[in-house]
């Protein structure tokens, strides 16, 4: 009896989607490492990590809670703009440099930003502290925007909410583009670089840091959602009336989900601008920061956190491959006057459609199973249910 159950455990461990996902990802990366070298792997990893966080946060709101979050870019912008606008100013103010409304103006930036970066690259303590402050500020502004979006989310339903969020995501981008003191308007603002201290290994360090952040977010979300809280989210998603009859405060749960999700997305936005070292308002388009995460989520499997990792990884690798090999593989199309350049859209579109048609539940379908560990479930089941009630 015992050996049988250990066997079953082993089997379920092997079939466990999370483990499968990790194995698949590691295999793909090893392949790239051996065939194309480290820079390629790092390139994939950094893209992967940023979008993994965003996609997982999207999944929390959409997959678990059923909020049609078509304004993911809102929270990403909140994080990116906050990190672009605030920590640099703080540091500049500390150092006695211009930090007011004109901080973001092109010509001022041009003088201030090298000094800030120089200060950071001199001290580990300062760099670390700066990074920490950036993340905290991103998280706070993300939580703020999450809370704000949760207000209409109480009243608006489905498409009404989704499209409002989508439209306001576009709008926020325009605000950043037009209001210069925020992030420099059209002429982006620099973000002082806390990773400059790594010198020549800066790129590697940033990538590893963001990658670790993504793993942490994964671990956190996994624990957060495989719990009664996660179940409550799904109840709200499946049926609000019934969920409130089961004692769930719909407003509170939707708010919690939006705040946590937006916070994570904003952290991703913050990490991204630390990585690029600059914030350009026009860079936060819905295609990149809302629709791609949606595509990743659909591929990964709505409602499954592990699936998100796999979905993001697969599509990231695919997009990189498309970029790099387009001309080699599809060059023959030029004969008909078709530029393989456009295949990126064709292929992304085809992948989205293919996934929806042939893998409707994604690579890792949502698990419909108990949140208790299998062993405990089995022991409860084996006790029989005549047990007393109440």
């Amino acid at each position: 009896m015992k050996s049988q159950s250990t066997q079953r455990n082993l089997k379920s461990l092997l079939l466990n989607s999370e483990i499968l996902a990790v194995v698949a990802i590691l295999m793909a990366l090893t392949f790239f490492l051996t065939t194309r070298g480290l820079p390629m792997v790092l390139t994939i990893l950094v893209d992967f990590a940023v979008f993994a966080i965003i996609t997982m946060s999207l999944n929390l709101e959409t997959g678990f809670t059923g909020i049609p979050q078509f304004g993911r870019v809102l929270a990403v912008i909140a994080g990116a703009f906050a990190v672009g606008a605030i920590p640099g100013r703080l540091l500049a103010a500390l150092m006695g440099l211009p930090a007011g409304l004109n901080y973001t103006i092109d010509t001022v930036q041009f003088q201030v930003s090298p000094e800030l970066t120089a200060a950071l690259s001199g001290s580990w303590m300062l760099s670390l502290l700066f990074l920490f402050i950036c993340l905290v500020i991103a998280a706070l502004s993300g939580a703020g925007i999450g809370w704000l979006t949760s207000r209409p989310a109480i009243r608006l339903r489905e498409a009404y909410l989704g499209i409002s969020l989508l439209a306001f995501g576009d709008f926020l981008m325009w605000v950043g583009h037009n209001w210069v003191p925020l992030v420099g308007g059209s002429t982006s603002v620099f973000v002082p670089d806390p990773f400059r201290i790594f010198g020549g290994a800066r790129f590697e360090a940033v990538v590893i840091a963001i990658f670790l952040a993504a793993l942490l977010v994964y671990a956190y979300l996994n624990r957060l959602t495989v719990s009664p809280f996660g179940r409550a989210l799904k109840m709200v998603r499946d049926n609000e009336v019934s969920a409130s009859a089961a004692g769930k405060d719909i407003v509170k749960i939707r708010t919690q989900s939006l705040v946590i999700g937006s916070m994570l997305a904003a952290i991703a936005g913050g990490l991204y601008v630390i990585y690029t070292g600059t914030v350009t308002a026009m860079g936060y388009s819905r295609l990149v920061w809302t629709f791609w995460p949606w595509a990743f989520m659909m591929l990964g499997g709505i409602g499954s956190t592990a699936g998100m990792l796999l979905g993001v990884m697969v599509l990231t690798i695919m997009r990189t491959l498309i970029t790099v090999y387009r001309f080699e593989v599809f060059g023959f199309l030029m004969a008909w006057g078709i530029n393989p350049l456009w295949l990126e859209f064709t292929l992304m579109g085809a992948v989205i459609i293919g996934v929806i048609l042939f893998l409707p539940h994604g690579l890792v379908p949502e698990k419909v199973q108990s949140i208790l560990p299998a062993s405990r479930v089995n022991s409860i089941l084996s006790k029989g249910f005549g047990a007393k009630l109440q």
Partner: protein
Amino acid sequence: MSNLLATENVTKKFGGLAAVNDVSITVKQHTFTMLIGPNGCGKTTLINCCTGILKPTEGRVLLGDTDITGWPTHKIYEVGFVRTFQIPLPFLGLTVLDNVLGAMRNSGEAPLKAPHRRLWLKEEENNMERAMAVLHRVRLDKHWNKPSHTLGAAQLKMLEVAKGLAAGAKLIALDEPIGGVDPASADEILSHVSALKNEGLTFLVVEHRIDIAAPYADYIYAMDLGRLISQGTPQQVLGDPKVIEVYLGKGATEAC
């Protein structure tokens, strides 16, 4: 026996139509109280008013000594009053077991506590034991691990009842718990309800299948067109000519 639930002159209007009109009922502790009446007389609406799904236009709803009029549904759940739905509203993406577990209390629902499994695991285990026992009684234990969207109509109804029974409330309102359920299972469900009553719970039950349900009832209220038309022990109410005329029909008269 003291009053557990009392409605005081509850009225609910939809536009011009008074679906519930000046209804005062009381549900005594540890009883199986039934609410009957022809279709559209306002039974479901009355329960909706009591449980916060709808806000009464006029009147008060008291649970014990607390005035719960107009409270949101989840708060009413908090104070120990749950209900089931006439047309089942399952959580389609969850398993049968999770449907039931979700209707129970667990402190792990706080997002700050949720990531720390230790803090709620024990609770969850106890809940599961109880949930399985309830499922056993409504004959769904075999299906505990199925997604609820694969259940048939009556099974969904039973699941709905199971959710209500497992919630750990002192007062449970069941809206047509045995509609579409086969007589044998229906008997089983009701006798389980009866056992729970004896353990100290209180039930308010709406049901049309008088032949099966009436024997379990302690007290019956009959409504018509939004108003109370009769109340009393089953014999009194079912023998009441008014009830027979609008509700039971001539066929049943002969039997009585």
